């Protein structure tokens, strides 16, 4: 089936949903496409049908409010849909998606990318054991099905997310064996002034930490998980202190655990931006590589906008406002009657960004963290490639991620490189004495999302599916 519209938006999180509502309010025919069953993105992920009732949290309240405003608007929300290809045809955007095994095509004048963030996890010995999940993954389990991954959970990583996850585990009746973070209390003190722009969030953070302290949950500041131990499942974690650049030190401590939630900050998910032809730039303060986008969401390409965390990690509050701003910018292309004051939005966007960027600053991995990835640590989970296998490719002359890809298949597996490319880029930078800004991320190739052939039916031709070719050297 082919659908046409004025504005198509990929992603129904705080940014995408607000962009859609705003564009529709200005009279644009607007479609929002999203992977999940309900709108909300990762931050406001809705509860599954398995939950009949449960107490509200700030996230469920904000999420329900967002979903109600989509329902009240003229936006068409296409749920459970995966966009796997984006093309430019005759001055229009053509999106190919799969919804429950059916293929659909959307043709739109304007395209807004609101694909949010992905999590960085530094490959660590034992991180492939069943029972180790990403911090972001833990939030998905918690929000969608109100479940926690184990009985004795170690929560580890950077920034505020560890305290949120630990506290949600406690709310859902679980036991947090320990919190392990390379951040120090002093790092947090430096962040507090910027956090005063959102006093309610600052307060919430205090409650999380105070509750953990009252419950006697050990918080190991300036520590990292050096290794996760176990044969077929997690049995314990080995933690060690870090120095100022987060290099792990020698002395160790063992903590018993049956599961681990781990994450080292968020990065903009840039695949859709890259595939649509936007150049990237390296901005560590926004989480790393981000697309070249102006504050109003415009890009160098006609009719193409990006909003929210997909432009750099500024957090949900900023994403909501950015969505509105970019929805206005998009509407201006479609109609000349756009009528909405921008300046107040801009002021609050900048204010919310300050808070979000202070959290990003806490979360960004420092250089020493790379030392967690030992010689035999698996870096590419899909193809079970260890650091030594990848270094072997580099010694054979591969100096870019694309070259490593075609030499060793790192990043060619079903995950599309999402979980190894940043770690590999850091490794190349270190080995070649270059900066991360010099190691250009690999070119994404469609399909953007895994498309099992067996799921396809309908008008879709299997030959339409571009099979990724090995990347050029």
């Amino acid at each position, binding site marked *: 089936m082919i659908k046409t519209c004025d504005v198509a938006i990929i992603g129904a999180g705080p940014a995408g949903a607000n962009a859609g509502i705003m564009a529709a309010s200005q009279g644009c025919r607007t479609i929002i496409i999203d*992977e999940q069953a309900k709108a909300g993105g*990762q931050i406001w992920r809705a509860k*599954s*049908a*398995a*939950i*009949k*009732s*449960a*107490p509200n949290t700030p996230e469920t309240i904000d999420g329900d409010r967002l979903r109600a405003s989509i329902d009240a608007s003229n936006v068409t929300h296409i749920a459970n849909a995966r966009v796997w290809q984006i093309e430019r045809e005759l001055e229009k955007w053509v999106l190919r998606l799969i919804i429950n095994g059916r293929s659909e095509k959307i043709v739109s004048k304007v395209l807004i990318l609101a694909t949010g963030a*992905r*999590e960085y996890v530094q490959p660590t010995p034992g991180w*492939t*054991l*069943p*029972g*180790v*999940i*990403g911090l*972001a*993954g*833990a939030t*998905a*389990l918690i929000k*969608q*099905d*109100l*479940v926690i*991954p184990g009985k004795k959970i170690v929560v580890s990583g950077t920034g505020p997310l560890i305290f949120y996850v630990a*506290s949600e585990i*406690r*709310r*859902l*009746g679980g036991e947090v064996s320990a919190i392990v973070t390379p951040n120090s209390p002093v790092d947090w003190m430096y962040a507090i002034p910027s956090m005063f722009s959102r006093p309610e969030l600052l307060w919430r953070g205090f*409650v*999380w930490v*105070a*509750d953990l302290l*009252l*419950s*006697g949950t050990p918080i190991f500041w300036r520590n990292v998980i050096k290794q996760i131990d176990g044969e*077929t*499942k997690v049995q314990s974690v080995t933690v060690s202190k870090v120095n100022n650049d987060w290099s792990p030190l020698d002395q160790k401590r063992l903590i018993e655990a049956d*599961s681990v939630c781990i994450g080292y900050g968020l990065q903009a998910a840039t695949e859709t931006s890259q595939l649509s032809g936007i150049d990237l730039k390296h901005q560590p303060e926004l989480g790393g590589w981000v697309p070249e986008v102006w504050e109003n969401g415009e890009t160098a390409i006609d009719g193409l906008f990006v909003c929210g965390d997909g432009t750099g990690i500024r957090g949900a509050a900023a994403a909501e406002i950015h969505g509105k701003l970019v929805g206005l910018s998009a509407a201006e292309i479609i109609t000349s009657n756009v009528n909405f004051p921008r300046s107040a939005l801009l002021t609050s966007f900048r204010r919310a960004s300050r808070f979000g960027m202070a959290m990003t600053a806490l979360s960004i991995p420092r250089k020493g963290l790379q030392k967690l990835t030992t010689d035999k640590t*698996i870096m590419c*989970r*899909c*193809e*079970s*490639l260890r650091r030594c296998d990848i270094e072997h490719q580099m010694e054979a002359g591969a100096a870019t991620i694309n070259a490593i890809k075609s030499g060793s298949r790192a990043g060619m*597996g*079903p*995950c599309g490189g*999402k*979980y190894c490319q940043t770690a590999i880029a850091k490794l190349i930078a270190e080995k070649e004495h270059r900066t991360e800004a010099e190691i250009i991320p690999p070119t994404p190739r469609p399909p953007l*999302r*895994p498309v*099992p052939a*067996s*799921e396809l039916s309908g008008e879709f031709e299997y030959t339409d599916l571009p099979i990724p070719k090995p990347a050029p050297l």
Partner: protein
Amino acid sequence: MMRLIPNHTSQIKRAKEISFRFDGQTIKAHQGETILVALMGNGIKHLRDAPVDVKPRGAFCCIGLCQECVVKVDGQLVESCRKIATDGLVVQSLRQ
């Protein structure tokens, strides 16, 4: 012990129970939850073996990106973190 974060478990009402088969074992689930959540609730985390080193793997991203949680349903590979468990479903792991 004093707690500032209340324990909400008793206030959560879940949907009715269903059951499905996982590698021949009966797994109880709540209607509407994913295969992954149901397996996790039954303490099962090892879902497949990795290529090359044949080491155990399980869900990692929990949102349909990493493909670590893939299992077989009706001969098709599905992401257990996205596929909703239904009554009588027959699920196979990719363990070797």
